């Protein structure tokens, strides 16, 4: 139960990163590997600023801005430098590794123990409200008293923040600029013929995407109590897993539905991982392998299921056809013209 709750907590934070990946991967149709680097950049900047005594909220926003710049640079590499999307992301990711080390003053890890982070401030504020007691009383009353979390504050406030970002993204994607960004990922030639500059729209889209990723990185660093230079490895795959799981489970009918699906996908992913790690065979180090397997399964399984359904349908049709033939005999044969 406790593992489940902490996956809910980290799930709503990682959901912000997943929204960023959704923006680049789905909306712009740009598989952007910058994410692995910009996640750490957000974490490194916020952690370093916090250790140096700056306000944690401002530190988080600074991390987010750095992510925006990193994303824009990837976009410029691709649009102006004409470098293939995957390669421009990888180049940026590698470059960011060194930059992140510089930000953290050549240390691979910046601990935040004993510092005031966004979350200690949130928890402090929350405990003054006294909602925890009331909620916990309800849970104790229905017999779930033993496994209660320390505070509900982080989960509830982060859920609100994530939903606010979701609604902001929904709104943005319906503005004139947002529509043009979506069309850029859908049909570049078309939107260029309607006077949209696809280059700058790609740069803007990647910037926003990586701003969200870095924002999540900054929050995860404060949530976990440290920033680590390796914390971004495989982040793009986690983001993809969240997007794909969410879309498969909750649908993509409209933009609002799709962004909600991505958030829920991120939470479901965390829960799957929590359960997988409960299995004794797995070590913590197997996390990335499990993630990769989840992504592979969620990419391959739907296709296999579709193929099987299609086969079943064809078999049924063949059978119906055969029965019809037996009943009608020659009536079905093509009419012949001439001798």
């Amino acid at each position: 139960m406790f593992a489940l709750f902490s996956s809910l907590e980290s799930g709503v934070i990682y959901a912000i990163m997943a929204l960023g990946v959704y923006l680049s991967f789905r909306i712009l149709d740009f598989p952007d590997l910058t994410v692995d680097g910009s996640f750490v950049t957000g974490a490194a900047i916020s952690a370093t600023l916090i250790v140096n005594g700056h306000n944690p909220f401002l530190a988080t926003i600074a991390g987010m801005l750095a992510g925006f710049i990193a994303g824009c640079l990837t976009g410029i590499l691709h649009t102006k430098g004409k470098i293939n999307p995957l390669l421009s992301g990888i180049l940026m990711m590698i470059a960011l590794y060194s930059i992140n080390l510089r930000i953290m003053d050549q240390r691979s890890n910046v601990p935040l123990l004993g510092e005031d982070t966004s979350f200690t401030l949130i928890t402090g504020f929350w405990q003054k409200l006294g909602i925890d007691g009331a909620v916990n009383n309800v849970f104790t009353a229905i017999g779930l008293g033993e496994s209660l979390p320390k505070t509900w504050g982080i989960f509830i406030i982060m859920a609100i923040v994530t939903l606010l970002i979701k609604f902001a993204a929904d709104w943005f994607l319906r503005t004139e600029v947002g529509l043009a960004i979506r069309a850029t990922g859908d049909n570049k030639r078309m939107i260029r013929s309607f006077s949209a500059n696809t280059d700058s729209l790609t740069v803007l889209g990647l910037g926003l995407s990586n701003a969200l990723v870095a924002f999540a990185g900054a929050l995860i660093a404060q949530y976990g109590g440290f920033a680590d230079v390796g914390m971004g490895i495989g982040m793009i795959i986690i983001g993809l897993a969240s997007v794909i799981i969410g879309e498969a489970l909750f649908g993509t009918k409209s933009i609002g539905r799709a962004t909600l699906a991505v958030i829920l996908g991120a939470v479901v992913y965390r829960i799957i991982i929590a359960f997988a790690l409960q299995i004794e065979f797995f070590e913590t180090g197997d996390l990335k392998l499990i993630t990769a397997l989840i992504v592979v399964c969620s990419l391959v399984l739907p296709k296999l299921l579709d193929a099987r359904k299609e086969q079943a349908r064809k078999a049924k049709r063949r059978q119906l056809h055969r029965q019809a033939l037996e009943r009608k005999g020659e009536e079905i044969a093509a009419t012949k013209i001439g001798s």
Partner: protein
Amino acid sequence: MLQLKSVHKIFNEGTPDEKIGLSNIQLVLEPGDFVTIIGSNGAGKSTLMNVISGVLYPDMGELLIKGKNVLNLPEHKRSRFIGRVFQDPMAGTAPTMTIEENLAMAYARNKRRSLRRGLTKKSREFFQEAVKTLHLGLENRFTAKVGLLSGGERQALSLLMATFTEPDILLLDEHTAALDPSRAALITNLTREIVSKHGLTTLMVTHNMQQAIDLGNRLIMMDKGQIILDVDEKSKKQLTVERLLEEFKRIRGEKMASDRALLS
């Protein structure tokens, strides 16, 4: 309205694959002119379209729209005053977006895009009225994704999107070639209707000689990157497919190369 002065374009210059795209193109379109362009494969028709729309840059020459030189404007800036419909029905619309969203993007052509809502109640009503003129019932499927429409419906929508902001120049690049005959006829009629309603200055490339003769007030024939025949409104009325082929033979001293052009 549109003026091309000594436009040259060579592909792969200095290599064994060197090919003349356009050679000394001189062309003036008056406001309201509807010019059809015919020619065999590789005659330079599409190259001409791409040079005007800014996809390709010519090696030499001038290009003026409303007396202003637009050669240094990139493609997306030129599209403020150039409407285009492509041959591929999939090319002119965004498939994962709805009909109304596609219309909204087309409508923002000659404005600066901002953070205003892409679709308002007022613009929706306007789009409804516009789509009704297509007589395809699309007004009842406004929130359907465009990818669900048939090729003909998508091409009709592309045509509407390219024209309802009344661009200075309309470029139609074989926009009926990928459709079956009945759909092609529908789009041809819509084209005639829309162009005359807004009085658009239009350049239309086609492989179909009969279509080129039926539509528009002027006809141009291209071959090997040159304009070899320019038929004005008066002579065009007496034009037939046979006369066109004879004319080609007389000018070039050889038969027209394209089977496709002959068959259609």
